[in-house]
């Protein structure tokens, strides 16, 4: 099975988010970047399928040279090769169009994305990519088992889940459940060493246009100071929730 795993280069989940002085972009100073957590679930499932079924796992991202350490990490975890589309994308439609060109060039059986990236939280790329390719999409995908050119996939829905039957090739938007947290792989020394020599191909962008662009960023207003309430005086809490906060 030939699998393409789309990797997003995002601030670590513990990062404090600050914006540049002109409020136009994320201030990346001092920010540690990681593989998007949702993509890690997808990458791990891709590697598991590769161990069962053979084939290749290719990691791809859209970005400038600064994202290469994140792609190398995907190689260290176990991807066989990587592609970087050399473009600074402004929105998810542009990302999906650039990824679709890589997808079409590689004749993949499966494309795995994260259900969303934890930076811009769009959640747009999996279904947009599938629609450009004319393939089925399952997102958020919390279970995937291929057999004979088809697959059974589990999709999370509000208040439960559903089981889908679909033909491959397909696009998945991965979420925890596709693999468990405990199954995630951490690069070992051998993986890190071999990642240095695995192929990382840089391709020119198609020149796809974005559908939208960020104009400015602000931070949410801070909370006012907490009111501490005595644990023996819960009637006061109930009264405040009713009269002050007006939520009960």
């Amino acid at each position, binding site marked *: 099975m030939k699998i393409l795993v789309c990797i997003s280069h995002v601030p670590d989940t513990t990062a404090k988010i600050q914006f540049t002085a002109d409020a136009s972009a994320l201030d990346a100073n001092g920010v540690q970047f990681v593989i998007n957590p949702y993509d890690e679930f997808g990458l791990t499932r891709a590697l598991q399928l590769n161990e069962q079924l053979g084939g290749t796992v290719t990691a791809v991202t859209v970005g400038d040279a600064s994202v290469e350490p994140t792609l190398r990490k995907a190689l260290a975890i176990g991807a066989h090769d990587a592609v970087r589309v050399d473009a600074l994308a402004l929105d998810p439609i542009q990302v999906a169009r650039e990824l679709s060109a890589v997808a079409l060039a590689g004749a993949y059986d499966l494309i795995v994305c994260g259900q969303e990236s934890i930076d811009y939280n769009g959640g747009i790329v999996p279904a947009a990519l599938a629609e450009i390719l004319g393939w089925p999409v399952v997102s958020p995908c919390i279970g995937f088992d291929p057999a004979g050119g088809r697959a059974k996939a589990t999709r999370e829905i509000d208040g439960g889940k559903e089981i889908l039957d679909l033909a491959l090739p397909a696009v998945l938007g991965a979420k925890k459940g596709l693999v468990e947290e405990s199954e995630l792989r951490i690069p070992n020394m051998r993986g890190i060493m071999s990642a240095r020599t695995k192929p990382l191909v840089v391709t020119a962008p198609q020149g796809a246009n974005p559908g939208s662009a960020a104009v400015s960023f602000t931070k*949410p207003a801070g909370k006012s100071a907490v009111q*501490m309430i005595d644990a023996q005086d819960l009637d006061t809490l109930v009264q405040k929730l009713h009269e002050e*906060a007006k939520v009960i």
Partner: protein
Amino acid sequence: MVVVFAETWSGQFKKSTFEAVQYASACAKAQGTQALAVVIGPASAPVESLGAHGVHKVLHLHGPEQFETAQYAALLAGVAQELNSSLIVVSGTANGRALMGALSVRAEASAISNVTALPLSYSPLRVVRGAFSSKGIETCESRLPRSVIGLIPNAIGLKDYSDSDAAFEDRSSSETARATVLEQQLASGSIALPEADRVVSAGRGMKAPENWGMIEELAKTLGAATACSKPVSDIGWRPHREHVGQTGIQVNPQLYIAIGISGAIQHLAGVSSSKTIVVINSDPEAPFFKAADYGIVGDAFDVVPRLTAAIKKYLN
């Protein structure tokens, strides 16, 4: 014309559907145009109830009984193109979010999700959206003549519309699905987290999964959904669908009660837009208190049953 996807759930509309419909109606009014609600699927859907939410017309497309991304995207895009609509509104539910990417490609539109308020302007379209898992607020501008907006559940309050002179039209639909739903498994009786008004959430401070009875009892008393922290879902004490935080569900309720959760930055990212946050923790140094409106230092096993009793007393 503003087109809004009126999502059904087991043949019914949810609160998030009415929010999306009212949002679309407000967008239409601001532009001096009209809003059209599109219902796809079940013949049993109570389409008349949409008329009271400000739309000019309700279009009921008969055919598919169950949501499938590509099929629903094609149907909605077809309506938007037929009407030359500049704006399509969907709610940020699991299905709405799944739909947006496909719909925007099919309708040759931009896709702007996580939207929290009415547009700042319409030409060009500028909207405010949550980014960086609620650690940032982005103003986003569309560069295409048509846009799909995904509205976060609970972001706008529902209001009463007095006029209800909507027209209704039924049509059969013919787009094909690319995947088949074999079965659905729904957690019975529970309230879906993303659009819950009240959420009772608990963490490792509960010590063991068998201690969740008091959490469920408090949630039941408040009519709240239950949720949990990431460590609790990772070790399997609670199902993944209850995991609230940066890599789990983002919630936006009126009231969020956090019990035995320390308040890691990843958890706060998923809950910080809650209107009122109550934190109950035995550790007075728990970082969650800094993000709370009301804090109680105490043992959950002592405080929670008494809080349930106090709320029951108040409700009576």
